[in-house]
């Protein structure tokens, strides 16, 4: 059996060639009132199809929908949840990429169907296993610009966790069995780890494989805590910064480890050998059935052609480890 591979977060929405920039053009035209919502929607769907197609063509085992409709990690929910509005632009952690900080101006309520349409569409396109994704409660709560509703960070995190649980239930009803919870704040803000644990208790569902995905920051100080979170897998970025996590993966005794080994924030291309060496190092501490290889984070931090090449290196590296022949 080959080590499994997956993607994380958003896939590049456009490529460098003009033919790969249909979404950019459609959004401009939509802004100018030249095309209607339905036409823009069709382009979003086309690009989603392209993204899933490219991920699958690279040989990735578990894909997502590429988050083509997402302006940023929080925007789909800031748009649909009542009690939340998109607020000021801010830098997304240590990236030259920006997001709208949510502003909480009332009790957060959702029907849990924010992602159902996108998930259902992607399920009709994907040939491989499809997973969904949603931001983590601690990340959402700590990135808010203002909160006029909840008296403390704790109240805010738990209210967001309850809304997130509804979204997870909505995705489950739509057929999802695997969901990534992208929560870099768990690593960025380790002092809140017990609050995060309380939030994840509210998300847990025995029928779903939830992955708590950390990225950008070393998870060093929270590694042992994460090992007892009620989730099926933990995502760890071992490339963005110096980290001891790589040598402590045996902390995870039951959960799978989604190991970010291909740097999604640098164009320098890993070789398949390099990927294989990372995998072999991890295999000393985690059995193969509980190891999944992935990019460190969203591939959208890279130009699309580099993203594609990174996925190819990832898959070839995984095949090298299991002695499978890499197709020329």
């Amino acid at each position: 059996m080959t080590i499994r591979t997956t993607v994380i977060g958003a896939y590049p929405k456009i490529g460098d060639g003009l033919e790969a920039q249909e979404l950019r053009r459609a959004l401009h035209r939509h802004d100018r009132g030249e095309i209607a919502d339905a036409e823009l929607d069709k382009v979003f769907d086309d690009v989603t199809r392209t993204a899933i197609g490219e991920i699958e063509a690279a040989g990735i085992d578990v894909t997502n929908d590429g988050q083509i409709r997402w302006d940023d990690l929080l925007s789909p929910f800031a748009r649909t949840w009542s009690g939340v509005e998109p607020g000021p632009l801010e830098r997304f952690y240590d990236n030259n990429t920006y997001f709208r900080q949510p502003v909480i101006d009332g009790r957060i309520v959702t029907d849990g169907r924010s992602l159902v349409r996108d998930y259902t569409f992607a399920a009709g396109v994907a040939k491989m296993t499809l997973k969904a994704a949603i931001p983590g409660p601690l990340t959402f709560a700590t990135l808010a610009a203002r909160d006029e509703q909840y008296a403390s960070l704790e109240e805010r995190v738990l209210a967001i966790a309850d809304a997130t649980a509804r979204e997870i239930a909505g995705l489950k009803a739509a057929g999802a069995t695997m969901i990534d919870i992208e929560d870099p704040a768990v690593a960025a803000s380790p002092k809140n780890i017990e609050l995060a644990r309380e939030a994840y208790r509210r998300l847990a569902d025995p029928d779903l494989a939830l992955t708590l995905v950390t990225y950008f920051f070393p998870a060093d100080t929270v590694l042992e805590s994460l090992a007892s979170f009620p989730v099926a897998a933990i995502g760890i970025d071992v490339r963005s910064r110096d980290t001891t996590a790589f040598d402590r993966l045996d902390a995870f005794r039951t959960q799978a480890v989604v190991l970010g080994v291909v740097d999604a924030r640098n164009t320098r291309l890993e070789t398949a050998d390099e990927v294989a060496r990372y995998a072999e190092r991890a295999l000393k501490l985690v059995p193969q059935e509980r190891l999944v290889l992935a990019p460190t984070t969203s591939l959208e931090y890279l130009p699309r052609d580099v993203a594609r090449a990174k996925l190819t290196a990832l898959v070839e590296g995984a095949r090298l480890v299991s002695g499978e022949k890499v197709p020329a």
Partner: protein
Amino acid sequence: MSENLLTTTVGSFGKPEYLTKARGQVARGKLGATELEELERKATAEWIRRQEDIGLDVLVDGEMYRGDMVAYFAERLEGFKIGGLVRSYGNRYYHKPVIAGKISRPKPMTVSWFEYAQSLTSKPVKGMLTGPYTLLDWSYNEAYPTRRDAVLALAEIVRDEARDLERAGAKYIQIDEPAIHARPEEIEIAIEAMGIVTAGLSAKTISHICYGDFAAIYPQVLDLPVDQLDLAMANYGYRWLDLFDRNPFTKELAIGIVDVHAHATETVDEAAEGIRKGLRYVPAAKLWPHPDCGLKTRTVEECVEKCTAVVEATKVVRKELAKVPA
């Protein structure tokens, strides 16, 4: 020129429509570089005149000839490659540069624009550079073993450019570090690099910082070897000023009093209130009112409105100061 509350701007202005159009034509190969440069010079001259008309004290060239504050330099340095398109936000994309080899500067990159802009006015024009830490942080590093190695190599390049600007007569040199708090644990690297850039300069040195968590690098950022820090404040509801309660601000402060990301311009009263807030922490001789950030995402008209609000608000507060015996 009044010595109190000198007004200025962060560096970039909105491009006139004829220039935006021309840049598009150049990209499609329908217009030559010489024709484009003519239009850039025309737009620069217009912005110098507008700044004088508005009554700003220390001017900028407006960066009519730059698209992006990192790519402009990357395109002119050896060792850089122009990378593919990456999204910054919404439907905005940029060519993120790649450091692919050892970096060197074949020739000065901003000096002739500075000289041209300065020749059009008797008011001082600032020399405008992007700092070494930001140049690295906003590029992919494929060539240098560590981020620090790349930052220090870039520092030498920026230093050479700063010295050339000073030789060309620049009395103010701004070395922007908007990415300085991207990784607060690396603030020492940014400080070390800025030390290389500003060592031996006699011009007044300024560094603009925006977005991000300023609190995470305060008060360490006071060790950044520049005379003036230039901070976005209006967009943040002036909350960074609270930090100065515990650790007094020790440099000159260029204070952002109008938000550049909103189409609507603050009223003169609102902007004046921003200056008054700043005066609680920094004396008038060391406080410089200006917009929060570069204005390149605004239209020419919006830029003029925002700058006018800055100048009018400053007049109001200067009058108040004149009434109070020192």
